[in-house]
């Protein structure tokens, strides 16, 4: 079997596969971890994976609309991080724990 030729520019499929793997990592971290801050960081990983595929398609189709959507995703992620971290701080002040299983006051 001859060695695969190395492409001049990485094709769009490579970026999409990388983005899919990164999204899978984010899902795994979100579901496996119990520390609320790590769960929150997994969400950021997933958002970045989505941004990466937006940019990949934008580059492939030579349109900048994907850049604008990525920009909006980033701004919303910033707002989400600010509010989410404030909620985490409040929860820690009231319950002094960071485990997602322990925070079940909405359960019943």
């Amino acid at each position: 079997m001859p060695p695969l030729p190395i492409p001049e520019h990485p094709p769009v499929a490579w970026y999409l596969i990388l983005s899919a793997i990164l999204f899978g990592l984010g899902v795994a971290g979100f579901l496996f971890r119990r520390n609320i801050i790590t769960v929150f960081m997994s969400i950021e990983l997933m958002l970045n994976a989505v941004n990466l595929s937006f940019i990949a398609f934008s580059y492939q189709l030579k349109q900048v609309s994907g850049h604008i959507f990525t920009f909006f995703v980033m701004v919303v992620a910033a707002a989400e991080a600010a509010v989410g971290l404030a909620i985490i701080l409040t929860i820690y002040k009231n319950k002094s724990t960071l485990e997602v299983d322990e925070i079940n006051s909405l359960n019943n």
Partner: protein
Amino acid sequence: MIDTALFYVFALMTLGGGILCITRRNAVHAAIWLIASLMGVAGLFLLQRAEFLFAVQIVLYIGGIMVLFLFVIMLINLDTAAAERQYSGQWKLALGAVVLAGGEIAWVMARGLPGLGAAAAVQDGGEGGSDGNVERLADLLFSEYLLPFEIVSILLLAAIVGSVFLARRRTS
């Protein structure tokens, strides 16, 4: 050739940082590996001629959001958090969800997206040069996407007010 080599470097950074981020016990280490992963993504943005988003990724994500994360981690007692059980016991359910999501993405990729190649061929003749991305982005942002831009600014204002309200000291 150089593009492909750089792709491998940035992809390794992104995936390695992501894996270490979700497996580290210490939250500070996890945040630092997440920064490495975000820098890898920023490099991939630059590789795809998204200069503006490369700068925004570094300034907003790494300089803003991740520093906020580190502040909160430092405010919270780390030793108690690291001593707690790290993984939830829901292995089967979580693994099933990950396999489902991965399979879904793989199916869409294998099937292909109709019209992707055709659209690329149509657009290829039009815009031409790959430089001047930032100008085109600004033109589009302040004409066609002006309303979403203003709505996002209201969202940011709501987030500021909300987080100040949540994090203030109760003095009653």
